């Protein structure tokens, strides 16, 4: 059954504020069920996980580990051991930069892309500087998509890790992660995919992609903020040193020595975001009920509706990112002659929330040759009616400022 957005909308109490929320690439709104479950948990069952031997501690541990299983299943992972809870995608990437990146040696190379979010760029720049590694950067094509030819040219036997996004948070383009992984494995490099913009917007199967690490955040897929995860291939995680140290991640500690816990807890020092994980599991249940294929198709419909209308407005600069296919519901653009911050303040006066700025992707902005852009990004609770209103607002704003 196709997605009924008017019905979906009713599940999101915040939308009653009378806003049009087009900043979903930054973070998404939460369905009512999350707040209900949270209230229920705090009222009925709360304890620390993996510690107490009493009933309520066991209940909480079970709910927490169930959530891990839901997330593993959502990505078609081999086992829940491969899901490491973090605060967000950024921390997941930093975990790999610390535990894997710091094992690399002078002369080794890391390959990333000019369009990456700072969270999948700065950690690599940093380890590269610290360890004397070489950071190679894939350029983009003329319409700012992933340049596969350039990727192949820059990939070589010295490349130990390829770190690229599944979907760019600026262009919305879906990068060819399966082909990227195949090529990278051919030279023996591991592959980290930054899936912050893909999980929750399309079906994702890490086994099919074939990658080695996959980082993502709960808050960008209807879940709470403060919880994210790293998926990693078990045989690789097994041989990696822990990231943070403390409780939970150890097996045995003496005054002189320490041994590490099993996966995934070895990488989860300290009390985790217990409620965050459990509510993230609820968000996944909600997404599954609607169906990831439906969500993907609906988002594409919204994108098409908006792009076709925006292309007709001569004062809108889409910066050559005109493709209707191969991308999700993200549109970066500018109103010619109007500064993005002025435009976003004006849109706010129409009740429309869009992002203005560099989108945590300054190298991408430099590549585009603009200081910043506007960005509208859609999700399952947005509607074509909202887009039509947005288009009218763009016209009026242009008229006011020019």
């Amino acid at each position, binding site marked *: 059954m196709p997605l009924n957005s008017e019905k979906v909308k009713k599940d999101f109490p915040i939308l009653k504020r009378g806003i049009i929320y087009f900043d979903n690439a930054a973070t998404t709104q939460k369905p009512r069920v999350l707040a209900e479950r949270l209230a229920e948990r705090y009222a009925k069952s709360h304890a620390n996980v993996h510690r107490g031997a009493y009933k309520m501690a066991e209940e909480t541990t079970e709910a927490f580990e169930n959530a891990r299983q839901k997330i593993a299943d959502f990505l078609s992972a081999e086992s829940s051991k491969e899901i490491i809870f973090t605060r967000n995608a950024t921390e997941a990437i930093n975990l790999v930069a610390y535990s894997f990146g710091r094992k690399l040696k002078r002369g080794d190379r890391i390959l990333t892309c000019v369009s990456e979010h700072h969270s999948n760029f700065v950690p690599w720049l940093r380890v590269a500087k610290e360890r004397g590694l070489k950071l190679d950067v894939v350029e983009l094509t003329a319409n700012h998509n992933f340049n596969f030819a350039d990727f192949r040219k820059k990939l070589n036997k010295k490349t130990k890790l390829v770190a690229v996004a599944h979907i760019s948070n600026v262009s919305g383009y879906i990068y060819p992660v399966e082909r990227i992984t195949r090529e990278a494995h051919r030279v023996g490099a591991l592959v980290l995919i930054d899936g912050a913009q893909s999980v929750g917007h399309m079906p994702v199967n890490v086994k099919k992609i074939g990658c080695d690490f996959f980082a993502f955040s709960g808050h960008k897929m209807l879940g709470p903020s403060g919880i994210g995860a790293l998926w990693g291939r078990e045989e690789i995680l097994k041989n990696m040193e822990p990231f943070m140290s403390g409780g939970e991640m150890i097996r045995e500690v003496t005054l002189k020595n320490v041994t590490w816990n099993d996966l995934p807890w070895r990488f989860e020092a300290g009390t985790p975001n217990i409620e965050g994980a459990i509510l993230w599991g609820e968000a996944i249940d909600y997404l599954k009920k609607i169906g990831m294929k439906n969500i993907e198709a609906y988002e594409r419909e919204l994108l098409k509706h908006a792009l076709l209308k925006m292309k007709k407005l001569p004062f809108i600069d889409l910066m050559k990112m005109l493709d209707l296919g191969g991308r999700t519901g993200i549109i970066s653009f500018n109103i010619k002659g109007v500064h993005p*911050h002025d435009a976003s303040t*004006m849109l706010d006066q129409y009740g429309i929330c869009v992002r203005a700025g560099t989108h*945590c992707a*300054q190298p991408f902005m430099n590549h585009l040759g603009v200081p*910043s852009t506007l960005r509208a990004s859609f999700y399952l609770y947005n509607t074509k009616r909202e887009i039509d209103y947005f288009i009218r607002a763009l016209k009026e704003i242009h008229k006011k400022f020019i």
Partner: protein
Amino acid sequence: MRMNDIYQELIMEHARNPRNVGVIRGAKKILAKNPFCGDEAEIYLKIKNNKVIDIKYQIQGCILSRASLSIFSEYIKGKSTSAVSKIKDEDIFKMIGGTPSPSRQKCVLFGCEAIHANLDTWPKKNPSTRLMTRRSQK
């Protein structure tokens, strides 16, 4: 006072016809940058006998930043450096006709802050507004 529509007449008029745009040869050049959006200004200050005798600038920025720098430059021309250094964020908001929302305050202030920082007496400004305007870059 809070702005409902910050793009009122005064702001739009200054953004369209900014005062004191240009360069002053041989004067001190100040670079100002808004880290939030990458907007930039080059400001030239001529100070003699502790008095701002001339100011010119070139700016690439939003309406709010262009208008604010224009209004501020008019205001400080001819004033003593000690008087200029006493100007607080709130005074600047008054000059432009209202307080913008937190995410836009830096647009108004970044040029003025650079000028302040380059007067000899760097003022200790109201800490609460300093906090509000110090926004980091994600």
